[in-house]
């Protein structure tokens, strides 16, 4: 392999400065035996994502418990990079995550970080494959705070609170915010399950944010499919059709 002569590029993500210090110290100790380079660090998920889009790296050392966007969510977004890095999770104490890591052979480091363990994990990282998205989904106990859309080599984070509706269209799902639309490649059923508290299904192919519902109007054709009711959303001119099967939501949210 040609990459073997290149030093391993490593990126650190942790919200706590002393924890990043510790990783830097131990990585420096590792570099005596294993050629590596610390190429950057970030203290939160979105900062890390921004930096990693510009700067592809081999390995990301990623803390699980961080405010706002946790490590599991960040790793899901990182998977959409053209060349996703190998992720090694770090955690002080998280029985749930550790059980899942063991089950799916995902590499992780326990804090306090130890030289020998870090060295071992980095050595393996060269040949490791990125963790599968399904595994990460299983690992996340909470719905993501953002959706991510991949556009011309860039990843856009869409805060879930800004999403008005999600509509399935052929291969993609359209994510609509007040400003614009994004396309994502996920399944509507999975999204419905993940964000059950936030969205309600109004049609076979459409989930609407409960908070965004302004009201209901009559309109559209009255057919076997459609009941003739439409949802009006806050800040959006567009009306969305409610299917006959989902007609009960007019009563629930009206």
């Amino acid at each position: 392999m040609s990459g073997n002569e290149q030093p391993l590029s490593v990126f650190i993500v942790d919200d706590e400065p002393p924890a990043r210090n510790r990783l830097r110290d131990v990585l420096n100790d590792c570099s005596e035996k294993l050629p590596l380079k610390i190429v950057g660090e970030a203290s939160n998920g979105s900062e890390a994502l921004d930096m990693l889009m510009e700067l592809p790296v081999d390995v990301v050392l990623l803390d699980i418990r961080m405010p706002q966007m946790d490590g599991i969510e960040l790793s899901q977004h990182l998977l959409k990079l053209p060349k996703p890095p190998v992720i090694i999770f770090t955690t002080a104490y998280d029985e749930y995550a550790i059980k899942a890591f063991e089950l799916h052979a995902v590499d992780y480091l326990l804090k306090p970080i130890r030289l020998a363990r870090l060295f071992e994990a980095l050595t393996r990282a060269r040949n490791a494959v990125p963790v599968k998205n399904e595994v990460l989904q299983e690992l996340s106990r909470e719905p993501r705070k953002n959706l991510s859309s991949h556009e011309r080599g860039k990843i856009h984070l869409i805060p879930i609170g800004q999403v008005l509706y999600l509509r399935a269209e052929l291969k993609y799902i359209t994510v609509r915010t007040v400003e614009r639309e994004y396309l994502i490649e996920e399944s509507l059923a999975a999204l419905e399950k993940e964000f059950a508290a936030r969205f309600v299904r109004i049609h076979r192919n459409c989930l609407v944010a409960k908070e965004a519902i302004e009201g209901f109007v009559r309109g559209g054709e009255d057919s076997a499919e459609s009941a003739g009711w439409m949802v009006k959303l806050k800040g959006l001119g567009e009306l969305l059709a409610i299917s006959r099967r989902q007609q009960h939501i007019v009563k629930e949210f009206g």
Partner: protein
Amino acid sequence: MIKERSIKQNDATDALPNFRNIGITLRILLISNGMALLLALSQASGWADVPQRIMQIIMLLTPILLSTLLLLWAAQPWLDQLDYWRGVFAVTMTVAMLTLGIYYLGGELYHPFFGDNVHFDAARYVILSMMVSGILLMYFRLRTLALSHAVHDARLQMLRARIRPHFLFNTINAVLGIVRTQPRQAETALEDMADLFRMAMADARDLVPLHKEIQLSKQYVALEQMRMGERLQVDWQMQDLPEDALIPQLLLQPLLENAVYHGIEPLPQGGIIRVILRRSGDELQLKVENPCLPRGEGRHRGNKVALSNIRERLDLLFDVEARYLVETGRDFYRVEIALPYVTVRPKLKERSS
């Protein structure tokens, strides 16, 4: 260790209730009057008869009850020195003598209802009184027994739950992170940790000086600030706190730990924890308030263990004299505790030495 614990457990169950405790007094009043009601029901010939029966019983019961409580309140220091069974005997005798005395002193007030059988009545009231006090003493003994098991459970739980493993491992990691560049700060951090864990491993039933608990809580905050930096701030508001006040150990620190773990850590910008400590009359008031993520935005759940632990200890130590209030707002969380201002380790029902 095990031996020491079992000795303490014996002490705990074989003690009379503290008759100077409001909670105990209330329970005695409630149960005695409840039994009077039952007696009235069983004697009455019809619904219309019940109030009159109650009146009869209460007229006799109330003076006996009140004078007994008063006498026991006064005799508490002396009763404390007796061993359990002598104490039981003394209490029962007190009740019997008071019943007899009040019955005869009451004269016409009590006799007319029951005709000539004055002495029979006297004997039967003495027997009833002794039975009721026996039942009450048995109830208090069982209650202490039940609660003292809870203390030991809480104590065992303490080592696992009071100081979170999350905190332990993160702090060790942070100390390792600064040890090469700031060895002095690392030293202080390890010293603070030692103090914190020493306290966590001490006897959970002990009271400690308030200023010591404040000191320890500040050490804890310093450790968390080492990790979280500017994001964690604590606003201490303390007004004329008495120097000599005693509080249960590790009462304040777990409240702060909860505030950090559930409140500040998940907030990207961090926040300020407000700690308000003050004395109001013969009460100490503690208030810990923290901002938190709005509900439904990934706020952690499950801070029940630490809080129920505190509640249980307060219950055991002060019964109804301590109050406990939790308020959960949309984006804040507040715990308020009021406990009696004590300066000497009280003779509590679970300790006799």
